[in-house]
């Protein structure tokens, strides 16, 4: 087990390094840097001004050096301007150049400075992640029980009318991407054209004070898309368990049907959905980005769009580190949990 974990952690580390390097490479391509310089300075900058801006800020160094600086294994770039003032990534405003540390990458806990929000990256990420965490918590609270109930009800009597209608329902859920269901929900429940106006079409106010009126629609929008998929997996695994020998034995012994479902079948039927729920996290990130854009909820997904749209390199790097870690950790949890839930599988 320890060896398995170590190996997995090693692979995860390599994956994370590769992925962040790819993001770093793409954000540091010359046209992107040029755009960054122009948004920082002004849009009518000459090529020379752009180049001197890039040079001053250390963007013209070789890619590997820049990446090393970002990680914190190479001393970071410094620039002395005409008046002898030293500026650099490590030197905070109001700090003396001599006192500033030489290394300041993510290993030293310095995530950099966002060029869009004009704030340290770690502050932004922390704040936005907390907001998205709140959203995700309620999504999970709605999605997981909903999907399991749907799936178990459909799968316990395969081929019945309940099964058919619930299966069709979950197929329709998976066929409705967030940007379609979000638009439909806003149209039905919050527009003045239909006139129901039960909920609010934006969730901006939910960032401070979440209540049913401003938070339900975004939560439901994300939850529905994932719910269909998990419900289908639960149904398949439930249907398979219900045909197995020990269920037949229990029925022949005269155990009542609710008892069979609750006590005998459920635990085994939940193994596959557990993995699926864990693997849904990366896809939920997609949903989060879309829903936060539609409902104007300024969380992590919204930050991703802002950072990517403005080529805010350090913020974008932090965003990708966080999302890659989320993906990899959930994969690991799903693998380990699978082994615990299903003792028949051994780690090799």
């Amino acid at each position, binding site marked *: 087990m320890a060896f398995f974990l170590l190996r997995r952690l090693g*692979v995860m580390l390599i*994956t994370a390094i*590769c*992925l962040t390097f*790819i*993001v770093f490479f*793409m*954000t540091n*391509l*010359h*046209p*992107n840097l*040029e*755009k960054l310089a122009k948004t920082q300075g002004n849009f009518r900058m000459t090529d020379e001004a752009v180049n001197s801006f890039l040079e001053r800020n250390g963007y013209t160094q070789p890619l590997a050096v820049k990446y090393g600086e970002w990680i914190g294994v190479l001393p970071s770039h410094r620039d002395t301007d005409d008046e002898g003032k030293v500026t650099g990534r490590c030197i905070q405003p109001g700090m003396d150049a001599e006192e500033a540390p030489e290394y300041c990458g993510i290993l030293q806990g310095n995530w950099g400075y966002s060029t869009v929000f004009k704030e340290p990256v770690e502050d932004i990420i922390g704040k936005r992640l907390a907001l998205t965490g709140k959203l995700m918590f309620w999504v999970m609270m709605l999605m997981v029980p909903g999907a399991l109930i749907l799936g178990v009800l459909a799968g316990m009597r395969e081929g019945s009318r309940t099964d058919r209608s619930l*299966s*069709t329902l979950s*197929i*329709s859920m*998976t*066929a*409705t*991407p967030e*940007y*379609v269901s*979000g*638009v*439909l929900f*806003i*149209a039905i429940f*919050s*527009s*003045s*054209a*239909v006139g129901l106006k039960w909920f609010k*079409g934006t969730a901006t106010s939910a960032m401070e004070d979440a209540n049913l009126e401003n938070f339900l629609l975004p939560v439901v929008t994300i939850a529905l898309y994932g719910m269909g998929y998990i419900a289908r997996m639960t149904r398949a695994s439930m249907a398979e368990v219900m045909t197995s020998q020990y269920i037949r034995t229990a029925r022949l012994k005269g155990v009542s049907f609710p008892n069979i479902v609750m006590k005998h079948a459920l635990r085994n039927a939940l193994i596959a959905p557990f993995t699926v729920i864990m693997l849904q996290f*990366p896809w939920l*990130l*997609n949903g989060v*980005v*879309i829903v936060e*854009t*539609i409902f104007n909820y300024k969380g992590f*997904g919204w930050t*991703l*769009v802002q950072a*990517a*749209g403005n*080529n805010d390199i350090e913020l*974008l790097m932090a*965003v*990708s580190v966080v*999302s*890659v870690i989320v*993906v*990899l950790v959930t*994969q690991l949890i799903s693998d380990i949990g699978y082994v615990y839930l299903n003792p028949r599988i051994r780690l090799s």
Partner: protein
Amino acid sequence: MEPLSTFQVILKILLILTPVWIGLAAIFALSITYKRRLGLFGKLFDSPIGMIGFALVMFWVLVAVMGGPLDMLVTHDALGQVSGMKNKVPGTPLAGAEEGEYAWYLLGGDNLARDVFSRVIKGSWIVVQIAPLATVFAFMVGITLGLPAAYYGGKLDTVISFLANLILAFPVILLFYLLVTPEIVETGLPSYMAMCLFVFPLIFLFLLLNSKFHTRPALRTPLLIGVLGVGLWLYFSLISDKGTPVSFMPSWLDLFDIPGGILVIFVSVVFVNSPTVFRIVRGLALDIKTRDYVAAAQTRGEGAWYIMLWEILPNTRGPLIVDFCLRIGYTTILLGTLGFFGLGMPPESPDWGSTINEGRKLLSIYLHPALPPAIALLTLVLGLNLLADGLREESLKD
């Protein structure tokens, strides 16, 4: 002229779509008549769910083909703006309609005074063109890499699987934002990726034909020269585009130019989809390679690629066909996502994602510009999912 009532709008739309209904009826009549001779496709007509799915998909395919290249169903120019029609509700008569023009905006006008109905129909052609083709390419890439990874195993498997997992761990939206921006297009990165990805269908075709016919050189050589010749020509025409760094073909030889944004979208959608296909193919092939008929072929001394492509691949067709339908639906969703974030597509493009994004900004007052494309996308993807479900059910029966 009087505005149309809701009932009249529906009636008019049904009437305009007459050719689609005729086409659908013909397809269904033919398929049901000959369903016993059509194999898996024919069996689809035994399952009501599969039939509904097939009907939805065929509806959009017919609408797209008739509305797109044939230019039949559209009532107005999808890009044309008519003054006085801004945000008008469905059924509004056209302001200052001339002789020969269609007299109403059946589904109203959007915030740039364009006809919503025509835009939805034009948008369907974009989806129906790109989604299946991109899925085919993703399958070619996934199959060409997945089969050897499973068959040979070992280091090859480790390396390719690692790369696939790498792409899979990438948040899709971030990837799109990184790939599909004008700045990245300027560097030519998508064009180079297109060069790499689009070579896979050629490799696939070459391996497929060569492994089957290499014992008959008299047939194989001309066949390969013909197929690969045409394939290479198409390949070079596809990747060589004016205005991108990859532009080497003289224009008289270049068959077609893909409009800049479309190629990038195409590449990124293929790129995102192929690792998943790879994983599915690899999983299926790992299972099938232990079967007796594979061992028999190995004993006969068949080549590795023959076994992979002519023994293993045909036996994975059931799950692969089902996944193919699902994946087209998923690709449609991805295309919508791209349009929704305004990535890649030109701003006035009538594709569904962009239209939904434009419409949602005024959603609290005007519903009609956003709802038709949303419902269109929903029904198409639903159709594909139901079709896949029907196929799965029928293929499990025997």
